């Protein structure tokens, strides 16, 4: 049943670009990328109970690794994806060691501090990163299929590439949270002390979760670099780190697809409200506050609760 629903969901995502104009196809691309970024973040937030406020730093590493390699003439999408994932994973390993010493507000503050440091590096290391201008892509990579070359500059092509990559990565994430490791993460969230006295090395478990989450955020960063045709320090800014937090809470941090759903609400709402006013953040706040107050499981989480209650 679950597999059937998942297939229908992904299948309908394949049909979407046929129904929408290019402008909306690009918004769908952004929803997929940011939604997957938020799902990677949510491995820590929703599943392990660790609120990272510096995830944009890791996302940005993925974006810059991709932009720098494209600048060097690398054009294989697979190479760019693997390099971006590894880059973000290695940075996660280095900073993670200090981040995982504590949890709760201390974890949030240390990740925020590292996020700000990564932003500053990207902003001030002008010779490498282009400073505040960032690195605009001179050449958008393309994909080779059956002897033809399709440029990612075309919204439809970009959409399908992003859809395939995020679906495969989300499948990996799904297997992860349903593995023994996934249950250990939930145990960490529920009661770290009991986990420790059941034999869990708390800091090591946190570190492994941090590296996986960071590496997956790197994939999102690589995709976002292709989508934006550039990498800029803005991708690493702490205000960018707030996005996955907001999306997870909007959609539901306790549900696998909650953050993706939150990303969809976020961007669709933005599109609608911007037609009337530039002060769209005021309206985002007006949506966020009642959700946190009255439906802390998020939109998808509450929906799931209602379905389960009906079943009973």
């Amino acid at each position: 049943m679950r597999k059937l629903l998942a297939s229908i969901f992904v299948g309908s995502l394949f049909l979407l670009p046929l129904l929408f104009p290019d402008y909306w196809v690009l918004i769908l691309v952004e929803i997929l990328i940011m939604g997957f970024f938020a799902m990677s973040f949510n491995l820590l937030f929703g599943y392990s109970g660790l609120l990272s406020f510096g995830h944009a730093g890791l996302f940005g590493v993925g974006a810059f690794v991709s932009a720098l390699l494209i600048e060097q003439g690398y054009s294989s999408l697979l190479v760019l994806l693997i390099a971006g994932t590894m880059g973000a994973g290695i940075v996660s390993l280095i900073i993670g060691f200090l981040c995982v010493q504590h949890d709760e507000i201390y974890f949030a503050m240390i990740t925020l501090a590292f996020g700000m440091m990564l932003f500053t590096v990207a902003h001030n290391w002008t010779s490498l990163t282009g400073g505040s201008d960032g690195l605009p892509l001179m050449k958008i990579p393309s994909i080779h299929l059956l002897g033809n070359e399709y440029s990612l500059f075309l919204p439809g092509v970009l959409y399908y590439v992003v859809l395939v990559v995020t679906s495969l990565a989300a499948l990996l994430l799904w297997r992860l949270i349903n593995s023994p490791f996934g249950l250990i993460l939930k145990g960490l969230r529920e009661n770290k002390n009991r986990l420790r006295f059941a034999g869990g090395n708390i800091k090591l478990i946190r570190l492994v979760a941090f590296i996986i989450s960071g590496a997956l955020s790197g994939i999102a960063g690589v995709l976002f670099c292709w989508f934006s045709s550039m990498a800029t320090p803005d991708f690493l800014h702490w205000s960018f780190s707030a996005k996955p937090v907001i999306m997870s809470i909007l959609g539901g941090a306790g549900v696998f697809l909650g953050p993706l759903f939150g990303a969809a609400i976020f961007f669709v709402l933005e599109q609608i409200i911007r037609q009337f006013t530039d002060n769209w953040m005021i309206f985002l706040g007006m949506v966020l506050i009642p959700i946190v107050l009255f439906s802390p499981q998020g939109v998808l989480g509450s929906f799931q609760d209602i379905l389960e209650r009906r079943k009973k």
Partner: protein
Amino acid sequence: MNTQAILKVEGLGHRFGDFRVFDNINLEVKKGGITALIGPNGAGKTTFYNLVSGMFKPTEGKIFFKGTDITGLDAHQIVDLGLARSFQITNIFPELTVLENILIPLIMHTKKAFSFLRALKKEVHLQNKAREVLSTLGLEEFANKKASELAYGDKRLIEIGIVLAREPEMILLDEPTAGMNPAETEKMIQMINHLASTLETTFFITEHDMNVVFSVSSYIYVLHQGRLLAQGTPEQIRENDKVKEAYLGGGAHA
């Protein structure tokens, strides 16, 4: 060293700042059966367990488990060596199912914590083992219920299950009947007696209820004002004048 002793504590002492919780505790727990640690409130029983189980490091003295020096090891390393504990205040995974509560220590026990891609549902061995532990405790019918939804006494049993799942050679039970009504207490005592007689595990329990202590344990240590006041069989302790005095003077539960 006496090969019969599974746990040996030498000159153990601990201070929080200037406050000395206890000092120079020497004791040995023999392999098998049930040994008890008793003492009036504030005698330092829970602190003693916290030191032995690796919650924190003692400021003085040494702790040996199966002849290995475990002083200063972290809690998870001590559990891996075969010494597990329960807590006075119920300590479980409240929002997970009862089955998942038992699966977590089993995953740790079988070293599968970093098994990333295999579905937990397909780990048949773990699933069966977890159900086995639940049936030992009479909790099988609640397997798929959320742990927080169970009655108090059953939550305490889940905690015993988490400990048993690690198949430890020695179990520290910190006040296993704390907060229980007489019926739940009776059920817990039967369970502990049953486990002690069927498993080869050594039990070391603290307990405020003297009837429980005298009925289950074969050897008793008495802790009072941070010192070992007495030790002996239940009969010896029952007749010990110093023990009577400590309990009567200290507002006894007995």
